[in-house]
């Protein structure tokens, strides 16, 4: 069902899927038989997926299909929900993420997350960005200043806030707050950035700026974005995973499943699975 690890980017259109030039890129994440339960309820099942480095991967699908749930497995955010239980394996650079000795806090230093509703801390802009580095032991003001500035620059926010770093972050607009949250993520120099519907609370211009930002920073971070906006997934991502729900015959509840995972241009021009076709074109029944 899944595509092989051919990494040649087809959107350039020059080389095509030339097998002679394909290089093996070790996956950043790999899941096997991943399933997540909330209490008795199986929210998503049998997810086998490989996320490649320096790619933007999008998860799309109708509501309740488990795409956010799967995303939150990658930084162990599901640990915060008492009734959540993860089965199967999630590997991060080959290491079992849910292994006994793995510290969730360390995981989250390397796998950052941006949420649907911007959630800046009720502190100054500077302190928002300095929080993470301070946790990591960086105390010198000059170093913190440098990190704050570079993170804000990469998040395309520096010019707008450089004169009011001490002002409260709550005074920024929604789009600015979300870019602040992205900068906050960048400030701890993670390996991966997970984005859970980052633009759904924003207007189209703010959304476009964040999409541009994603393209700019994807060289340095692996990005996985959950979005219910198919057009956004099409614009922004290199690979797209389509999830859907299936009714469980015994319990009559819906469980999420991974249907198709392929290059974005294929998903949106000629998807392999009929269910994917039905979802992206809006033809059901």
């Amino acid at each position, binding site marked *: 069902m899944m595509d092989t690890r051919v990494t040649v980017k087809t959107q350039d259109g020059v080389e095509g899927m030339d097998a002679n030039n394909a290089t093996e890129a070790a996956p950043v994440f790999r899941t096997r038989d991943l399933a997540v339960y909330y209490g008795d309820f199986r929210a998503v099942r049998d997810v086998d997926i490989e996320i490649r480095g320096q790619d933007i991967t999008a998860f799309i699908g109708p509501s309740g299909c488990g795409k956010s749930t799967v995303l939150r497995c990658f930084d162990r955010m599901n640990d915060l929900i008492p009734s959540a239980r993860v089965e199967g394996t999630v590997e991060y650079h080959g290491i079992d993420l849910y292994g006994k000795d793995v510290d969730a806090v360390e995981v989250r230093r390397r796998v950052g997350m941006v949420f649907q509703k911007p959630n800046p801390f009720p502190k100054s802009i500077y302190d928002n960005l300095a929080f993470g580095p301070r946790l990591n032991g960086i105390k010198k003001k000059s170093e913190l200043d440098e990190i704050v500035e570079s993170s804000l620059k990469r998040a395309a926010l520096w010019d707008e806030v450089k004169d009011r770093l001490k002002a409260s972050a709550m005074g920024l607009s929604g789009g600015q707050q979300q870019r602040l949250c992205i900068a906050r993520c960048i400030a701890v120099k993670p390996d991966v950035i997970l984005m859970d519907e980052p633009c759904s609370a924003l207007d189209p211009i703010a959304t476009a700026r964040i999409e541009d930002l994603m393209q700019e920073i994807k060289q340095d971070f692996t990005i996985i974005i959950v979005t219910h906006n198919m057009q956004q997934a*099409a614009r922004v991502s290199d690979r797209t995973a389509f999830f859907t729900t299936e009714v469980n015959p015994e319990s009559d509840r819906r469980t999420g499943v991974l249907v198709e995972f392929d290059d974005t241009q294929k998903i*949106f*021009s000629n998807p392999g699975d009929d269910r994917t076709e039905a979802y992206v074109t*809006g033809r059901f029944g």
Partner: protein
Amino acid sequence: MEETRKLFHKDLSEVHQELVRVAAGIVESIPRCTTILLEQDLTGAETMILADDDVDRRTHELEQRCIQILALQAPVASDLRQVVAALKMCAELERSADLVVNICKAARRIYGHDFDPRLRGLVVKMSEQARQLFSEATSSYATGDAARAAAIDDMDAFLDDLQRQFIQAVLESHSAGRIDLQVAIQLAVVARFYERLGDHAVNIGEKVRFEITGWLPEHSGADRFRQRRTEGTTSHPAGGESS
């Protein structure tokens, strides 16, 4: 789950049906223009030439509708292929209708001159083959039958053959003094028109295959170029390739 974007899908199917109607009209017009040619029917020719304006109008409107759909609906996957195929087909159909008009204009030019039964027989055969090709193309588009569309290419080979035979016969007729130079040239050109009609039918078949499966035809030139490049026999200055 219920179907969504119903208005959009209705739009798409209306475009599809209108294209089928235009194509069907062209299919019917092929034997008619042949009759006009063979019977040297001037009024008939006049009517058909004027009727082409209507085809132009209809394909133009279809093109505009397709562009509108692209702008407003952002189609993806099969919907996108359908719109792109429809856009390309407008061009094919419009050119095909023009070819029929050209045959009628040729009929006007050879008015008063007669040509021998062998030539006439070949014209009828070419016309029939072209009509059949175009009919196959139209049917495969109407029913979405990619396999049927793929078979059109083989039929076209026969038409090409007929055309060569006809040219041969025209040259013989001319050297035997049965027809004069003007008529010979016009007849040769008419043969081209029928052969081009067949080519357009093949193109339509390719569009159908693209719409159904996403398959894009690779023109032999691209393949040759790649061959040459991998063999290292091509040397061209930087930037010489266009995408």
